[in-house]
């Protein structure tokens, strides 16, 4: 009888240890982050450094733009309901991040545009002066093998089109780490995206630091002309 109670108690303890509230924050934004910011129709993607210090101090450094020599101030960062928020007064972008994710990143919006951002912890503290040194400090993540996801047959049957945005980190060997779906128009597209990501490879790098990267996938359907339709 006692052993039965003991077993129940062990199970309860294990369950309690394994259980975490769904709303628990996983990411502590404090520190310096190497980030990719994407989605601007004119400017394209940017690689930036973001830094979050105590008392809401936030700053950002662009690496491609030598005209911006170093850190520029962001609006004070705040967290509310496990969401990180701050703004970039220079571009008007309002950034948000769901801190319940495994990694720092999220979306940004202006009055007319939206996009996303994704970061990896960085050890860069001092922004190099020259553009070459900056590129060297934050090298782009170059794809070696970019596997294309299959179009799910169920989606074709149901004439579903959609869009998926996924962000992830790339390790020194060029493998995808911690992929997360940022935008998913329909659940049917999730599995092929994750399979494709697992088959993708990036250029390896000597540094141990992880690098952030994102990919957008657009699933679209073309209607075949009558003569193109094949039957068994």
């Amino acid at each position, binding site marked *: 009888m006692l052993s039965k109670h003991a077993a129940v108690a062990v199970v309860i303890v294990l369950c309690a240890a394994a259980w975490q509230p769904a709303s628990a924050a996983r990411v502590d934004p404090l520190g310096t982050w190497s980030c990719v910011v994407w989605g601007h129709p004119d400017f394209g993607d940017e690689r930036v450094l973001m830094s979050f210090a105590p008392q809401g101090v936030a700053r950002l450094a662009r690496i491609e733009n030598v005209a911006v020599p170093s850190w520029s101030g962001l609006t004070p960062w705040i967290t509310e309901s496990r969401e990180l928020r701050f703004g970039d007064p220079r571009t008007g972008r309002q950034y948000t991040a769901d801190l319940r994710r495994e990694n720092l990143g999220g979306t940004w919006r202006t009055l007319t545009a939206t996009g996303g951002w994704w970061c990896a912890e960085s050890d860069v503290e001092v922004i190099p002066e020259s553009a070459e040194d900056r590129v060297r400090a934050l090298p782009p993540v170059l794809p070696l093998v970019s596997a*294309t996801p*299959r179009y799910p047959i169920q*989606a074709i*049957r*149901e004439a579903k089109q959609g869009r998926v945005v996924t962000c992830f980190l790339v390790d020194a060997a060029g493998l995808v780490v911690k992929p997360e779906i940022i935008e998913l128009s329909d659940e049917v597209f999730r599995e092929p995206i994750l399979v494709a990501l697992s088959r993708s490879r990036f250029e390896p790098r000597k540094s141990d630091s992880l690098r952030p990267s994102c990919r957008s996938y657009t699933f679209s359907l073309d209607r075949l002309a009558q003569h193109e*339709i094949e039957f068994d």
Partner: protein
Amino acid sequence: MVRLVACGIVSYLALGVALGQRSSIPELTQQQADSRTVLGVANEYLAAGAEALRLKEYDEGIRLTKLGLERPASPRDKSAALSNLCAAHAAINQPDAAIGYCTESLAINDANWRAYSNRAYAYYLKRMFDEADADLDVALTLNPSAKQMPQIRGMMNERRLRGRVTVEEHQ
């Protein structure tokens, strides 16, 4: 002896017969909105033909149903029987004959959603997708909850749509 006979004749299995040859398409159930069960047999040949078709004995089913149609039957049963002939001919890949029977069926009862659905499948076999779409739309209006129409439309979409995935890297 009182026998329970699925009547209305067989309309319940009409498309099941047509689609039963395709292993990718699940066999349809009898739990359809207009499946009917009555006491007694109005026309033995039509009932036997329906049973043969349910067992995928298409030639025998067609023979018996045609015999049944030579005997008295209510317009509703006649319409269902013609719809079954349509489904059977579609199942043995004779879409032209199938379309003829479905059209005859609809001339008798234009609210027979199975006849529209069966004819849509026959049009699909002939790659006449626009005509099939039109029939599917009507069938769906008559019975929005039937499984057959999304199945046929799915089969058409598999043929006529080509998926394209565009990848954009954000670096």
